[in-house]
Structure formats: structure tokens, C-alpha cells
């Protein structure tokens, strides 16, 4: 009897804390959503959203940030997948050092990083602030650094889930060179890990403010801040759009991972 009572009590508290956590996360979002829909007095509507979607500066920022995010993902994956692979294969003892290096963007404030980048690359020998193209290169370099902890960890977790060394040796014994080992065996088995890292990278770049603001580039982050200085309802609508973008990214991740499972299941049934 006591056991049943104790189980019931435990389950009650589990539900209670669960609901509390959900309220903690979703109430502010609900508040923002509700506020963003009340631009017209007395009715709920999408006026704030219409204003944003009809603003060419929003679309310019959106396009710019998406382009930057895609390039950042490509550069990050190109740097981190071979690096982490090589580390696992040849210098596994370097992993703690890599851990520390990749965590630096969490420790060093964004503003310090931006000033460091601007001071270093605004003067010879490598002056990257003289044209918008060069500044974009600097932006991407900065975004790669900012998103480094996410991409490294995603790839690292992926590598840990497979026996990198043995798979490499098995492929080599079948005649595979390093390029084929990486493209045929390692990367396909890290697909979900890379996708996970990429989507977090994407969300980070889409919301990034300091780098774009100080380098005066038309990204979505500075647009959101500038809008917030003079308007009330539109920034709330923009925040919801931003949340939706992140959730969309996570949804995509979920979709691809479950699709890969479904495809495998289909093969068995066939």
C-alpha cells in the first residue's frame, strides 16, 4: 500500500514539475505571440507581420543572413569533419586541447572577439575591411568561430558513435584511399551529426548581432535591434519569426533523422 502511495506521489511531482517547466518555457513565447498579434486595438491580427514582410530591409537582412549561414555551415563542416577525424585517428590525446579551444567562444565575450577581429584585420598585412566582399569573408570567419563549439561537439559525438579507426582500416584494406574513406565511410555515418551541427550553426548565425553590427553588414540581427528601438509590436513579431525559424531547423533535423530510420525499415520489409 505504502509502495503504491509513494509511486503515486512520485508521479504527481513528475507531472507538476513537467507542467512548471513547460509554463516557464512557453508562457513568455505565448506572451510575445499574443502581443505581436494585438497591433490593432481590440482585435487579433497579423498587421505587425505584414509590416515586417513588406519591409525590403527585412528581406535584405534575411537573404544576407541565410547566405552567410549556409557559407558558414560549409566552411565549418569542411574544417571540422576532417580535423576531428584526423584527431580521432592520429592524435586522440589532443582531444582535451580541442575541447578547450572550441569552448573559447563561450568564455570570450562576443564583443572582445569582434574587436579582436576588427583590430587584427583592419590593418596590413591582411586588411579585410576595405570592401564589402572582404568584410563578408571576415564575417564568415567570425561566424565559424562563434559556431565552433556546436559544430565541434556535434561532429565529436558522431565520431564517438562509430569505430572510426577500425572502419578506416577496413576501408583501406579494401583499397580505399583517404578521400574515399572520408566520403564513402566516415561522412555518411556522420550525416545526422553534421546535420545537427549545421542547423544549430544556422540558428546561431541567423540571430547573431554583434559581429554584423560592428562590421556594418545588413544581417537580420542588427535589423531586429534597430526595429526594437523605434517600434513595439514589430520586434515581437520578428522574435516569433526568429523562434519559428529555429523550430523549423529542429523540425528538419527530426524529420531527416526519422526519415533515415524509416528508409532502413522499408529496406527490411522489401
Amino acid at each position, binding site marked *: 500500500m505504502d509502495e503504491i502511495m509513494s509511486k503515486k506521489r512520485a508521479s504527481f511531482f513528475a507531472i507538476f514539475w513537467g507542467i512548471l517547466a513547460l509554463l516557464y518555457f512557453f508562457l513568455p513565447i505565448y506572451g510575445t505571440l499574443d502581443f505581436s498579434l494585438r497591433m490593432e486595438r481590440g482585435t487579433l491580427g497579423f498587421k505587425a507581420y505584414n509590416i515586417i514582410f513588406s519591409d525590403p530591409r527585412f528581406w535584405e537582412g534575411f537573404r544576407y543572413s541565410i547566405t552567410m549561414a549556409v557559407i558558414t555551415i560549409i566552411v565549418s563542416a569542411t574544417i571540422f569533419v576532417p580535423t576531428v577525424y584526423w584527431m580521432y585517428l592520429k592524435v586522440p590525446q589532443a582531444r582535451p586541447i580541442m575541447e578547450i579551444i572550441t569552448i573559447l567562444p563561450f568564455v570570450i565575450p562576443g564583443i572582445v572577439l569582434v574587436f579582436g577581429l576588427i583590430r587584427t584585420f583592419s590593418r596590413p598585412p591582411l586588411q579585410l575591411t576595405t570592401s564589402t566582399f572582404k568584410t563578408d569573408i571576415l564575417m564568415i570567419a567570425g561566424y565559424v568561430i562563434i559556431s565552433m563549439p556546436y559544430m565541434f561537439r556535434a561532429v565529436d559525438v558522431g565520431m564517438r558513435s562509430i569505430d572510426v579507426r577500425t*572502419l578506416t582500416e577496413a*576501408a583501406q584494406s579494401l583499397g580505399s584511399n583517404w578521400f574515399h574513406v572520408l566520403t564513402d565511410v566516415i561522412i555518411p555515418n556522420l550525416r545526422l551529426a553534421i546535420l545537427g551541427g549545421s542547423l544549430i550553426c544556422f540558428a546561431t548565425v541567423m540571430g547573431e548581432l554583434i559581429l554584423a553590427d560592428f562590421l556594418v553588414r545588413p544581417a537580420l540581427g542588427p535589423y531586429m535591434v534597430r526595429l526594437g528601438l523605434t517600434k513595439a509590436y514589430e520586434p515581437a513579431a520578428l522574435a516569433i519569426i526568429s523562434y519559428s525559424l529555429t523550430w523549423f531547423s529542429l523540425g528538419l533535423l527530426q524529420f531527416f533523422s526519422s526519415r533515415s530510420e524509416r528508409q532502413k525499415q522499408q*529496406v527490411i520489409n522489401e
Partner: protein
Amino acid sequence: MTHLELTHIHKSFGTSVAVEDFNLTVKQGEFVSFLGPSGCGKTTTLRMVAGFELPTSGKVTLNGKDLTYIPPNKRNVGMVFQSYALFPNMTVAQNVGYGLKIAGKSKSEIEERVREMLSLIQMDKFYSRYPYQLSGGQQQRVALARALAIRPELLLLDEPLSALDAKIRFELRQEIRRIQQQLGITTIYVTHDQEEALSLSDRIVVMSQGKIEQVGNPFEIYNFPQTRFVAKFVGSLNTVNATVVDPAKGVVSFDGINLDVEDGIKGKSKGDEITIAIRPERFNFLAEQRKDNVFDCIIENITFLGSVVRIQMRIGNSIFNMDTFNRPSLKLPNIGDKEKVTCSKKAVLLLAG
């Protein structure tokens, strides 16, 4: 004809020596096992043959071609790993055909060879399965087919059965031997399991601490171990320290009991200390058959091991094990009984090293 030759192979990792002066020639189609405990250098030697480790010194030759500095992907050596190492992103057919795809073979050729290999391992129905949908034994069969699909000049197996349960191990062991004999492929097999090595191999290389202890066929290795290590590592063994009584006649003594040894004791003088060894199955109760050496013993313990019954007995102050077949007509003594046991002169091994 010599197919594989390892000449003065030496491998060090920093100050630690993994393999020392390893010399071996393997004939075409021969099945050779490297047998030894963990850390004896058997896998390191195999990895040097595969090209995954570079020897510190020495030479690896295959079909007269020096492979020592050739990268693993250029050696045409198939390898099967303990952990199967199937590519999780590929189906069984894609795994088996991968080496052929890398070699640039046509789709139809790959398809034909994959079907042939799957038929060889009797897994035709598993063509489209993914590795995670297979049992350990099935995965290892696929790994074997994958290694063989490229028609390697040499097949290397690194403890391929270690991760499997006893029944599957036994089945797959027979299958490996059948396939090896069917294809006539030269094979190096690494194991720490003496039963595997004894049942599969044409020759066994027993290794300890990076060195070869003995090379011989299973019969020689089991019945005529040349060193104390081989005698102790392969099969069960009773060992006892004895004193030479008459080296010419081959008489030694332990615990005050004389024991006859065949062919005398070379290189020893009266009074020298010596280690003698007797396999448990070489003892018999006197009633069964009279032999050269007869001892009084007291039965200490009896253990059933399935097809064999192990009887522990005290002769003098020393404990010996005797193994006898567990047949229905077997009349076992009771614990504490006094019995007479015997073993032939031939059964007594003199251990060196």
C-alpha cells in the same frame, strides 16, 4: 613455394618492444595461426603485414614483392576484424561490393561477385539488409565475404570469433576453414584461443612477449612443446620440479619418487634440477593398462567437464590432474581413495626455457 615472408621483423613503441626478431615463411594456401596471450605481439605482427603499422626494422614480402613500405590500400590483402567493421551506412551487398567499386569494376561484375560471395557464405537472402539488422555471426560472415570479394593475395583474420558466443564460434570456425580450403587462399589467423588455433591451422606460431616460442603443426605444438611457455599455454599440463637421478637411463625423481623418461636426458648431470610436464590425459588407472611409470596416489577431487572427467590426485606431495573420457562404463573412485596410476615414458616432457 614461399608466399609470405617476414624477415627479422622488429617493432617498438617508444621504449617498449612489441615484436622482436620475428621470422616466418608461409606457403601458398597455408593456414597459419598466431597464438599467444594478450600483449604478446600477435596482432601487431598481423597489422604490420596489413600495412597498418610500420616495422621498426625488418621486411615483409608477399609473392616476392617487398610490401614493407607499401600503404595498406595498395597491398591487396583482405582483413577481417574482431569488431566486424562493416560499414553501417551500407547494405550487405554494398559492403561486399565496396572493394570492387573502389577498384573500378563494372556494376554487372560487382553484382555477380557479390552474389557469388553471398552464396559462398550462405547469406544470399540478406542482400539488402543493413549490418545492424544482422547477428554477430552473420556480420562476421559478411565481413569475411567482403574481404574475399577483392580476390586478395592474402587473408588476415584478427581474432574474428572473439566477440561471438561459443556455439556460433564453433560453426563459424568450421566455415572459415571450409572457405579457406575451397579458395586455397593463404591465411594468417590471430587468436588467443588454443582450441581455435589447434582445430583450424596447418601451422601454429606460438608467441610470447613479442617473440616466437615455437612454430609447428598442431600435433607438434600440443604433443612436443619445446618451451615451458608453449607447454603451459597450449592445453592443460601438470608440471613438477624434479632432480636428475640417471641422465643416461633417463631417470628423474620428485618427492622421492622415481620417474622414467624416454631417450635419456641430454645435457644434464646427476643432481641437476629439471622441470617435467605430463598432460592430464596421459595418466591412466593401472587397471586399465600397465605402463612404464606406476605411482601410488590419493584422489583429492573429481570434476565433470562434459565429455571429460578431471580427477585431481596427490602423488607424493605434488598435485596432478588426470583426464579421462566420460563414458557410461567409467568406474570412478571416491574422494580419498588410494589408487595406482600410470603414464608412459613418452608422456613425460622435459621443459626448457
